[in-house]
């Protein structure tokens, strides 16, 4: 057992409101500068949709992540070896139009325009060329579209769904959408790290945060290709690649990352997971269908004395172990089995997990001819000349699994490498908690029914209450259990901490050149 600790995350998609506050919190602090305009380390996508950069999930285009061929797992598009032979030409890079050409407006024209014979307006211009631009793409172009020929219907996840099923998804009475916020997954098996010819990318030992060393990066951009989530970006101004740093300067200060701090839907959770590094190799070599189980299997029980002893042996701090025992991520992922990684088939072992969304029940449409009735209406009245009636009624208080919007296959394509049963399992659990809480708070659900539903979902009333508590009532410190960074120890490896107290903040210390 080789125990490591990792700061991991859960995003509860049922609660996500698609507001993008997270994206801006991140942008304001980290990417609001030249060369980084187009970067959104945190972005939120509407599903179905093609996302940012467009169709990033389609590895036939981008060649990201790992692939398993002939029993071995190797980088799909940008291995060190493969990369080096192509070092000056990486054919699998997204181009700026796959992201979007950043733009602004000639705002000053409004204030400085001379008197005209018509109103001035601020025209859009490219942030790259400064010239007028016809805006055709943005980092969130298909926001809230939920269905449109150019976007939602090109969602790569639809490939696994029959054309008939797809068509149904875009009819008003059956369509739906949900939001998918994305940051770097700080993977256990990060393709970006593996792909970097310069060795600039590393995973921090103390918390698992994956970073690109801005001094070492040589702009090969292999990481941009290798990351199947397209969460490594090239800064054209500094000539370095950059990515989400999980706000380590904040984490080190005991603050939640900015995107999580600002999550006004309260969907985000962060905490420590202990895992067994020895199992990583076998985990990523599993069959597609086993990937999730393999990943869960390497997560260790922070209450297990053996785990604790092994962790201590590896130098994991008591404070980290303490945090691990309060970790909301451990509960959602391992204890309750409610959260799943995004596209496990990319085999990077992402350490960000998602609780899948519930969706409203579908409607059925009854064809009617109400012309005769409509003709009776007051002549002033607006008439709707539709020929149908909507019915969204359900037999029970809440709809059943077969009535939810979206084919389960679609959700499975995102979160379980196509395993529909796993998605059903999560849905049942989420609904069982609601039914149980209905019994407790209203009492119009019988004990028999509530207990049977809990049993079917593999939950007890106690667990259901615990899930409810952490879903609905958590306070900030319950959602974010941040382990102490023990910076004093890290500093001590280079300097006397007491000296650093007086010297910190003076910047990267360049040696003064003394010449004779």
């Amino acid at each position, binding site marked *: 057992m080789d125990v490591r600790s990792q700061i991991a995350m859960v995003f509860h998609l*049922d*609660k996500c*409101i*698609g*507001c993008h506050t997270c*994206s*801006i919190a991140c942008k*304001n*602090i*980290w990417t609001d500068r030249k060369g980084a305009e187009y970067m959104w380390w945190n972005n939120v996508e509407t599903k179905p949709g093609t996302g940012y950069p467009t169709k990033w999930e389609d590895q036939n285009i981008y060649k990201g992540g790992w692939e398993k061929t002939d029993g071995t797992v190797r980088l799909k598009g940008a291995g060190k070896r493969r990369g080096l032979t192509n070092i000056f030409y990486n054919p699998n890079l997204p181009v700026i139009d796959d992201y979007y050409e950043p*733009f602004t407006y000639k*705002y000053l024209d*409004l*204030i400085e325009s001379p008197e*005209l014979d018509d*109103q001035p*307006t*601020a*025209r859009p211009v490219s942030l790259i060329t400064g010239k007028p631009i016809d805006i055709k793409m943005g*980092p*969130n172009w298909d*926001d809230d579209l939920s269905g*449109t*020929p150019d976007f939602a219907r090109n969602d790569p996840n639809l490939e696994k769904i029959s054309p008939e099923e797809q068509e149904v998804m875009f009819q*008003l009475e059956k369509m*739906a*959408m949900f939001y998918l916020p994305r940051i770097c997954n700080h993977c256990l098996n*990060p393709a970006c790290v593996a792909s970097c010819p310069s060795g600039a990318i590393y995973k921090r030992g103390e918390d698992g945060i994956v970073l690109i060393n*801005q001094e070492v990066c040589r702009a090969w951009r292999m990481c941009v290709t290798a990351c199947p989530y397209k969460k490594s970006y090239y800064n054209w101004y500094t000539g370095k690649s950059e990515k989400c740093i999980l706000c380590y300067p904040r984490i*080190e200060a005991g603050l939640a990352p900015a995107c999580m*701090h*600002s999550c*006004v*839907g*309260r969907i985000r959770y962060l905490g420590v997971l202990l895992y067994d590094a020895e199992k990583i190799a076998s985990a990523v070599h599993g069959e597609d269908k086993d990937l999730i189980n393999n990943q869960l299997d390497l997560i260790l029980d922070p209450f297990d004395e053996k785990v604790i002893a092994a962790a201590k042996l590896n130098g994991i701090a008591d404070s980290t172990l303490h945090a691990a025992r309060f970790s909301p991520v451990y509960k959602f992922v391992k204890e309750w089995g409610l959260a799943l990684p995004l596209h496990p088939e990319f085999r990077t072992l992402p350490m960000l997990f998602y609780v899948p969304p519930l969706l*409203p*029940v579908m*409607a059925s449409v009854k064809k009617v001819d109400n012309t005769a009735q409509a003709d009776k*209406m*007051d002549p*002033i*009245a*607006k*008439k709707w000349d539709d020929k149908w009636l*909507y019915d*969204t009624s*359900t037999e029970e*208080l*809440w709809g059943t699994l077969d009535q939810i919007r979206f084919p389960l296959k679609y959700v499975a394509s995102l979160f379980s490498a196509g395993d529909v049963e796993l998605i059903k399992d999560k849905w049942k659990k*989420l609904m069982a908690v*609601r039914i149980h*809480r209905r019994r407790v*708070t209203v009492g*119009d659900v019988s004990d028999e029914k509530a207990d049977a539903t809990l049993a079917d979902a593999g939950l007890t009333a106690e667990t259901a209450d615990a899930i*409810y508590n952490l879903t*609905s*009532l958590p*306070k900030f410190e319950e959602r974010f259990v941040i382990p102490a960074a023990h910076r004093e120890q*890290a500093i001590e490896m280079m300097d006397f901490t007491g000296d650093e107290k007086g010297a910190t903040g003076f910047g*990267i210390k360049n040696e003064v050149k003394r010449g004779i």
Partner: protein
Amino acid sequence: MSWIEDIISPKTRKWEEFYRNRFQHDRIVRSTHGVNCTGGCSWQIHVKEGIVVFETQQLDYPLLDSKLPPYEPRGCQRGISYSWYLYSPLRIKYPLIRGSLIDLYREEKEKAGGNPLKAWENLQNDKESRARYQNSRGKGGFRRASWDEALEIMAVANIYTAKKYGPDRVIGFSPIPAMSMISYASGARFLQLFGGVNLSFYDWYCDLPPAFPEIWGEQTDVCESADWYNAKFIADMGTNLNMTRTPDTHFFAESRHNGTKAVVFSPDFSQICKYADQWIPLHAGSDGAFWMAVSHIILKEYHYERQTPYFLDYVKRYTDSPMLVHLDKVDNEYVPGRMVRANELSQWKDIENGDWKFLSLDEDSGDFVVPKGTMGYRWDKDGGKWNMKYECGETDKSFDPVLTLLNKKDEELKVAFTEFGLAKKALRGVPVKWIDTVNGKMPVTTVYDLIMAQYGVGRGLGGDYPSDYTDPDSAYTPAWQEVFTGIDSKTLFQFAREWADTAIATEGKCMILVGAGVNHWYHQNLTYRAGAMALMLSGCVGKNGGGLNHYVGQEKLAPVDSWSSITFAKDWVPVSRLQQAPIWHYINTCQYRYDGHYSKYNTVKENKWTDKHVADTIFTSVRNGWMPFYPQFNENTLELCKQAIANGATDDEGIKQYVLEKLKSKELKYSVSDPEAEENFPRVWYIWRGNALLASMKGHEYALKHYLGTHNNLIATDAEEQPEEIKWHDVAPVGKLDLVVDLNFRMDSSALYSDIVLPAASWYEKADLNTTDLHSFIHPLGQAVAPVWESKTDWDIFKHLAKATSEMAKRYFPEVQKDIVATPLTHDTPDEITQPTIKDWYNGECEAVLGKSMHKLTVVERDYTQIYEKFITLGEGIRDKGLGAHGNHYECKEEFDEMCTSNHFHNRKYQGKILPSIQEDEWVINAILHLSTLTNGKLTEKAYKFMEQKTGLQLADLSEGSKDVKIRYADLLAQPRRYNTSPVWSGLMNDGRAYAAYTYNVERLVPWRTLTGRQHFYLDQELYIAYGEHLPTFKPAPNPEVYGDLRETWKKGKAMALNYITPHGKWHIHSTYMENLRMLTLSRGCEPCWLSEVDAETLGIKDNDWVEVHNDHGVYVTRACVSSRIPPGMCIVYHVPERTVGIPKSQLRGNKRGGGHNSVTRIHLKPNYLNGGYGQFSYHFNYWGPVAPQRDTHVIVKKMEKLVW
């Protein structure tokens, strides 16, 4: 896995400092965004190296009770992008003046030998020059100016206008004080000291839900968002919480995981639908029909067949349902009439306020009783009977009110009911008692029985009742609603029964969330009432987890008691000129000329009231004291007083009599009766904190034409039907306004079209206060950096303007003036019991009596040289008269005196006295906090004691927990504070309980401020009866042919009209943030027009094509966004786009710049809201009067082939 390096050398990790340095900051200051978003969110503003670098949310809201999720974090995508604005190229850094104006003014001033007054006069009298600068409005050419010069022009325009036309031609518009109370107060205080006019906003924005005053006598009172969590069944009626209540939405999501069922009504798959258990895609604007049928089921199954005790007990005690109502014989048919008055019975014919006390029957004795708590008891000289105990006010005996006469009837009469959807009349049997009144024997029934009949629940009675649920032709069955909503009855059955069952199981925890999605329809009140009926019939109002919770604007100004006195300068001036904006703009922008007869688009019964133009009814409402209108008269109100004195008036009373006689003789005319005459124009307009010319200006292009006199894109022509009483001019005036001033931090559309733009400090640069109805904390705006460049806080700007105006007065207007101010009859005062029946003195129907049959007149002294001194000094009016709000009152002598002596406050010597100084914004804040029941526990107790006297109930215990509370601004900067439970508001919040409206009324039996003191099912006001809205009913949305948006447009070929829906958007709060680069980047670089796939295909439009959205009123040019989440037949333009950013020229309208979303709107007013002097139907600013809807608008969307910038 060799690529994962276990040990990285510490040295190679030194670079990590790179990102650490970026995050390091120097200071965090608490502030919020004063932007009418209802957020009131607590933010950490990070300052680094002297500039604001970014913001993140604070996390320290005090916790409410432990069963509720916490409030943190609050703050959305818009708020977090604010810091972009601070140093953006849109920022107004210096005063700007329109070049053409400043040139002309300087020229005139030189010619006048440096005399500014003469210069302004000459400029205004030179028609060509005036038209020259008016025509250049909005077209660039700004010049940077000094503060001194800008202030001089404003001051001289003020003084010139007051001298020539009267001070009531100087107008101010600033919306939503709750978002930054001190900033609002600054301009309002200046204007009211000056004698100018403040325009209302809540009704103008169409955010005022008229159903609230109708039913509850309340402007709006709703639960805080934490209480959503207490609900067990939530019906979301078109309010898109994700968009509009972003920081609160989590309560909705979290409640569902606690076993709450959530149903969303929305024609499109709006963002909130993603959470819904059921999404009900009913036709846009048809919600009322659905709810009418829901109540039909509840009444039939749960009131009649099952007689659910909880429901029956509730309606009996808390609604008007046991009150007796006349059945009048009109045209040989019985129809519901007025409620029976106590003084109609001989034994009570002479009792005090007998017109305003109503009757019920006692179940046990069968005797008549006069229930306590009705409005008559509210204003009786001896208090103590204004409560909802089951006691007769005249005998003090207990009783049990009779709800229905079904088993007590003398007779069953057939009564006529009208259903407006299918335009059908039904004669339905109603149980009746014949009673002996002083006017003879008369048939009466109860409100409850009328409701049963109206909803078509037969109860074994005869007549045209529906045969059963499947009857499609009889109101209001489940089958009947299908043609209006497009929703199958099956869905309705499930909904109604789950609703009622949940209400029984939880005693009232069913909730409606509603907002602009419904309130902006022409018949918004009926839709709201339809929903409210389902709530009241199931006992869900005044309960935590229940209620009709309407969220549109940030209307809840929590410390309204002290704030309103200081804001409207009541410490110095006894009355204010507060104008109902919808009627004002309707008349002054000339929109009434284009409107025609409203009975063409509003289904009404035919009678003398409905056979009128709205403009005429407005005139009636003004002279009868129902509505205010400024300018008041066609003569200068200052000159009128001089005339009166010259004609022998020796005191204020004499002046009033003089003016009254002139009005009676019609020698003096109301400005509203001749709005196109030059002497009746509004002249000077101050705009601050709002985007008055575009974002809220429904009929924007009409304002460009008639207010500003600049180019416009309207092609509408005068309507065929003209008003009769209002004087018609064949040619409408163009360019009424002499001067438009805008205070702004950004160059928005209003700034672009103004003559003077002043740089205003924004939300991270000043001290202010903010409250919202979404939470119960009082929140500060704090100064993270000083006002940038040359900007100033609003308080400072108006202080400087007051000073400049006073200085100008010392030179050109030094004499003390008398001003005569007309004000309407107001709610929450004895004025509300002045007009039991409508009689028009103007037409000789009754005597003209000030404050009774007509408006009031008050003489006010104005010393224009002293405006500045009074602005910065708190006057003794507060000390002498005390404070209050919503009919409450408390004296505050001690607190006032404390401010004059304690070193916690600032004072100054004025007119020989030491008085509190409010010179600086922080000092005003502390004055408000110190004098409010919300933030000073001693005053809370006093206010409850006052209410104890008024009601005869024990209430002061509610203030026990807050006795020692004394909140100061510095406390708020440290942490937002929850304010006190106060009788100024109706929710009880003791011990961390979530605020829910009317819990005070339900639990403490304090009456609602309505006629009966109960919640109203029935509205017996004469106009309501005339328009057929006395009973809850359904009126269909008008079709595009009758609404008049496309008359001229269709002459060029009839194209497909789409319903034009403008809900709140994701990337802006109204227009603010819309042009913020962050928001434009995350959206599509513009505010597109959303179309369904079906309509887009029909129209040959592809996603991202340029389109022209147009009708008679104007054109908006944008790009199409095609989505399957939009149903056919409607399009969405999320409001509000600015016309300043990325708008090309319109090819349809002569290659002129396309406008904004309000370029295609024009307002239509509902005349029944014009009434007054009658209980809850009495005027109050932002509280009562017509609202300005725009949702019934239709447009044509056309692909634009040629793109011209």
